[in-house]
């Protein structure tokens, strides 16, 4: 459970940093009537939707940290046989990076108010993301064709489970991306469009980060890395 504890430590650190800016040592019983002085403490200047997405991403991060924790705990048992990762996953990774880059371009374009480039970025991101999902499915098919079935070994089970869960999150993101695209083509207000594109980009970058972690985990690098850390510590 060390992975999830480290993750929660990061969250706790962030929460602690935020709380330390909230005057937790104030003595509210002595502060009657001073409404005007606290405007800075009322709420964050960030858009509410961004904060909402941030909280949601913390939950998603928690979910994948827990899968990782379970992965490491199950890995220590004797019947674990790592499976060879399909080389296709490298290509998929590249495609997902591409979609993240495309969305970042869309964000920049939206900030500059270049609606055509926004549309281009959104379309590229949508297509590359679809390509990523198709690529993942093809990787699954390759593995099953080679006899690495879901239930035949826990390493396989975790592979399908974690990649599947990641794919589901991408799929959910596509719904948001689709709605943003509809707005981009139907002439949504520039400010609103900009926020939606930024939210999409945020989600995509996060899921790319999650995917890189998963990739490292499934390829076995994460375990090697932790072993090295352990040796350094002991």
């Amino acid at each position: 459970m060390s992975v999830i504890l480290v993750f929660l430590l990061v969250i706790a650190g962030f929460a602690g940093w935020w709380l330390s800016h909230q005057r937790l040592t104030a003595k509210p019983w002595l502060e009657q009537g001073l409404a005007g002085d606290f405007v800075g403490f009322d709420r964050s200047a960030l858009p509410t939707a961004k904060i909402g997405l941030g909280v949601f991403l913390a939950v998603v991060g928690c979910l994948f940290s827990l899968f990782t924790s379970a992965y490491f705990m199950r890995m220590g048992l004797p019947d674990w046989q790592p499976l060879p990762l399909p080389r296709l996953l490298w290509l998929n990774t590249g495609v997902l990076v591409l979609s993240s880059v495309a969305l970042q371009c869309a964000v920049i374009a939206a900030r500059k108010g270049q609606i055509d480039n926004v549309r281009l970025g959104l379309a590229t991101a949508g297509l590359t993301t679809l390509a990523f999902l198709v690529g993942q499915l093809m990787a699954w098919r390759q593995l099953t064709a080679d006899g690495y079935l879901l239930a035949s070994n826990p390493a396989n089970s975790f592979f399908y489970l974690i990649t599947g869960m990641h794919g589901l999150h991408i799929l959910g993101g596509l719904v948001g991306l689709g709605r943003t695209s509809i707005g981009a083509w139907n002439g949504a207000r520039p400010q609103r469009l900009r926020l939606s594109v930024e939210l999409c980009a945020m989600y995509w970058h996060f899921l790319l980060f999650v995917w890189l972690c998963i990739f490292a985990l499934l390829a076995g690098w994460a375990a090697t890395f932790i072993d090295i850390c352990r040796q350094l510590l002991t």
Partner: protein
Amino acid sequence: MVDVTPADAVPPAEVGEVELYHPHSWWTKYVFSQDAKVIAVQYSATATAIGLVALVLSWLMRLQLGFPGTFDFITPEAYYQFITMHGMIMVIYLLTALFLGGFGNYLIPLMVGARDMVFPYVNMLSYWVYLLAVLVLVSSFFAPGGPTGAGWTLYPPQAIMTGTPGGQDWGIILMLSSLILFIIGFTMGGLNYVVTVLQGRTRGMTLMRLPLTVWGIFTATVMALLAFPALFVACVMMLLDRALGTSFFMPAIVEMGQQLQHNGGSPILFQHLFWFFGHPEVYIVALPAFGIVSDLISTHARKNIFGYRMMVWAIIAIGALSFVVWAHHMYVSGMHPYFGFFFATTTLIIAVPTAIKVYNWVLTLWRGDIHLTIPMLFALAFIVTFVNGGLTGLFLGNVVVDVPLSDTMFVVAHFHMVMGVAPILVIFGAIYHWYPKVTGRMLDETLGKFHFWVTFLGAYLIFFPMHYLGLMGIPRRYAELTDMTIMTESAHHLNSFISIMAFIVGFAQMVFLFNLIWSIRHGREAGGNPWRATTLEWQTPQTPPAHGNFGKELPIVYRWAYDYSVPGAKEDFIPQNVPGDFAPSKEPS
């Protein structure tokens, strides 16, 4: 004394007005509503309805335990199913949903001075997914093989094997699916509760001016958002084990002479995941109760809460600590003794902030102008009950004491006291307190007193004897104990007594339900602020609050939520939205 300059008239110009969704038809106003108040009532009604099912299940269990062998229809399998569903429903579908979905939805926007939750559409979805989860759960009663009988902890491998009711039928699949749905629905709602507290607060409502109710619900929601994924992961993996034959949790196992296809899985892994959710869950239920009870005590004792800052810090400390105590549920799982030592230590440490809260409640009462209204009675009963249940928690938190007491009725008595009876008492107190705001009418006092005394005394008569049964070594989760030597005749009598009390207490809840329904039309008119309370929900222009909560302009907050009996003030309470400094020489508490 700080330098105080009264700022009487601050224009509300900087309060960002949110775009409110306005319903257009009866359906979008009362059924597919995006108004947090309606969603709160929907959540509460659904949770109460499913809670009644769990109440009936507990009666059936008590029938079997109190009068073993008398009722043919309660087979051992049925008994396990009753236990499982009773536990799961009460912990998740009733307590979590009612505190966070019910009270959270109703109180957060009103108490922080918001028009609604920040994402009303997602909030509506949250309720409907929750309802779906409840329906899936209920459907398992009618599935072939009945609901699962794996115990509310659903430990593998037994949870998905033939010997367990529902293990190889639909029961466990429906249970796990329902939990997954619940978690998805809760996450939608939870995002709203957290972000509304962060971003929805009206002008002047700093974090340190929030009523403790909001602090409790807020922290509990943050915890729930981070803890429920653990249950989600456990459920998904067990579902795969059951449906697709993977071996996440399932070891190589022989069932009825047949070697199953599972191999090498780790049941302990499930226990870690389950309790990583399961222990924070205790505080997810307890923290809203702590917060609500603080407000009830302060309001009905007409005195500011003692040590407000400590109360807030304690809530945060409990929230953080509760993530590092989970394995104290697993002392008998064969863990490394140093782990046991570590988790026993953290468990005892968490008692410190909890005890601070109890002291502060008692000190708030000290020399207060205590009104023994029904909410106050329930709040007082909560303090006593929580202390009782908490003390046995210190017993069970120590490895050497826990090992012999593990899986005895002592454990049942402990967790019912601390996380069954105590939070339920707060829920009752809170309903008596806020019902006038929700409906505009008071609940009937006489029926309320009857309900309180029967519930309070009855709960003690039910759960106190269980401690003794546990100390005698009587195990939990056994449908039939008649032939065991430890079941002495006096233990049998005690069991019958407990069962009879359980029926009486259950009956008192029917009186309460009658009161709830009857008072909607026939209760005494409450007016806007019957308890003369300071928090914003009592300052709404209409009662019940209309769509948008606060009329044309949002209130501006000038003070904390606990200005009761301020010397020099005209009345014994000053609402949060009243400007001016009334207390030039007020002592900090």
